[in-house]
């Protein structure tokens, strides 16, 4: 067992790396090994991973910075995994993270369990829990093989915070030249203010019942009155592009559990509700009394949202503390 007992973590995003370190550390007592973070980029990022609690960092320097896509690390990472055979490699679920995981799996001759909601050890075996059928079912599986690959989304694990002493074991690794390269012509920054739905205590969620982009102002008013974050269902973010993708809740988006979730014009398709079903309290406003969301709410307002939402904002502003 000893030579297989390492847990490795990798993400191109430092805040994500910190969460994965937290997740990896929580599994370590069962595995009995050490935690290694693979870092691509500056020495500072490598040192930061140690302070988040990594026992060791495998550091690949990237002197060209952001001009070189992170995915170029794939052949290097594959060689390190083949040489050192960690038990588990945890990768952060971003689109880049998925690409790294899939390409690694192909090279290593194994599969990946993506978007795990929970990872535990049972009798020396890893047990992964994740959603299938767009949230219609939960699957539990035990991945087999020498090295197991898994990806986890933001919020699945908790960042341990920067508490560990600096210094530590930082090992520089050599780049294995990729077989192919793409040329970066341009990058366009998305005009999205950073949002952390996972941390929000109250969320107002926009669904397709909201007819026009201009009508979002009604929902914004309500969110202000509640001191809530604004979220949406997938079609609002993808397709209609009214709100940035970071704000959609669902099986492929954010998984939230706020104290209060208010759905405005949300019908309640399972692909969405799987991302909010663990909320402490659920309120829905929808004109269709038969909308599936109403079977999963604590308080329902059945009626025209264009009447109800402004009244609700007003009542919240006028309430006596």
């Amino acid at each position, binding site marked *: 067992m000893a030579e297989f007992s390492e847990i490795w973590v990798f993400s191109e995003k430092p805040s994500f790396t910190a969460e994965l370190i937290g997740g990896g550390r929580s599994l370590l007592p069962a595995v009995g090994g050490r935690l290694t973070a693979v870092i691509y980029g500056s020495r500072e990022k490598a040192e930061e991973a140690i302070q988040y609690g990594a026992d060791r960092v495998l550091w690949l320097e990237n002197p060209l910075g952001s001009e070189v896509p992170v995915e170029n690390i794939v052949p290097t990472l594959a060689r390190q995994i083949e040489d050192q055979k960690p038990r588990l490699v945890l990768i952060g679920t971003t689109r880049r993270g998925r*690409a790294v995981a899939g390409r690694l799996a*192909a090279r290593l001759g194994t599969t*990946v369990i993506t978007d795990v909601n929970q990872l535990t050890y049972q009798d020396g075996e890893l047990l992964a829990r994740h959603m299938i059928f767009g949230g219609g079912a939960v699957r539990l599986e035990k991945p*087999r*093989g020498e090295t197991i690959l898994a990806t986890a989304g933001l919020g699945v694990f908790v960042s341990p915070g920067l508490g560990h002493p600096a210094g530590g074991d930082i090992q520089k690794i050599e780049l294995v030249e990729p077989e192919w390269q793409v040329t970066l012509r341009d990058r366009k920054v*998305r005009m999205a203010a950073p949002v952390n739905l996972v941390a929000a205590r109250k969320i107002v969620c926009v669904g397709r019942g909201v007819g026009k982009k201009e009508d979002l102002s009604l929902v914004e008013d309500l969110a202000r009155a509640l001191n809530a974050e604004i979220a949406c269902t997938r079609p609002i973010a993808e397709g209609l592009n009214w709100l940035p993708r970071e704000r959609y809740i669902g099986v492929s988006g954010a998984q939230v559990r706020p104290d209060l979730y208010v759905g405005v014009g949300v019908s309640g398709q399972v692909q969405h509700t799987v991302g909010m079903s663990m909320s402490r309290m659920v309120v829905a406003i929808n004109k269709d009394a038969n909308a599936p969301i109403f079977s999963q709410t604590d*308080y*329902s307002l059945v009626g025209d949202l264009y009447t109800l939402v402004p*009244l609700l904002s007003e*009542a919240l502003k006028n309430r006596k503390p």
Partner: protein
Amino acid sequence: MNIIVCYKPTPDASDIVVRADGSISVERAEWILSPFDLQAVEAGMRLAEAAGGKVMALSVGPRQISNSKLKKDMLSRGPDELYLVVDDALAGADTAVTARVLTQAVRKMGSFDLILFGEGSADLYFQQVGLQVGELLCIPTLNAISKIDLEDGRLVVERSLEDEIEVLETSMPAALSVTTDIALPRLPSLKEILKASKKPVTEWTLTDIDVQGGTVKAHSEIVAVQAPPHVERKKVVLEGKPAEAVQSLVDALQKEGIL
């Protein structure tokens, strides 16, 4: 330009039956094409229509994928040819198995310039197979592609990441997994529906494409498939005139200590 579009028919999630013990069954579910795959087909059709060439649809799986309704449905979306690898050993295949069988099929199909994949499958949604196939073929492999253009025999694509859009240029052949908003799938016209049954369909077994038994061995053990955890809700419908109902909600939230 030869374009291969991979797709995966799946049981319709709305036909899932939850058994008394919380486990689920898809035995009686109808098998359907997934919207994710139709978006990839549409992206392929638009490229072929603009640049000339043909579109070949490819799927691997158990016998359900070769039902005539599904084959006709796919071909009525525009592809010129259909290729299937059918074997019941592929039921519930993991991404690694699916990717290896697809890769063997692609090699057997001959020369190609581009392989397209949808964002993920409608059942497992691992979003992995396109990446694995591309890597196994050792060709440029990208996911999250929201726009594809051709320029002087090279691909110029947009890749929609969480916080930025990359504009990338790559040689062909390449393997691309596309986003859900790349192209709105067309509705099949009557003409296309009539044409569909006359288009060539090639069905292979695993042996036909030289896949050995060991290749389809699962990489994980499925322990359980269950209905998602159910949270009990109060299900209070607030009645009355709008202003009264709204006030009852505010009172209730205040009483619950939410505000």
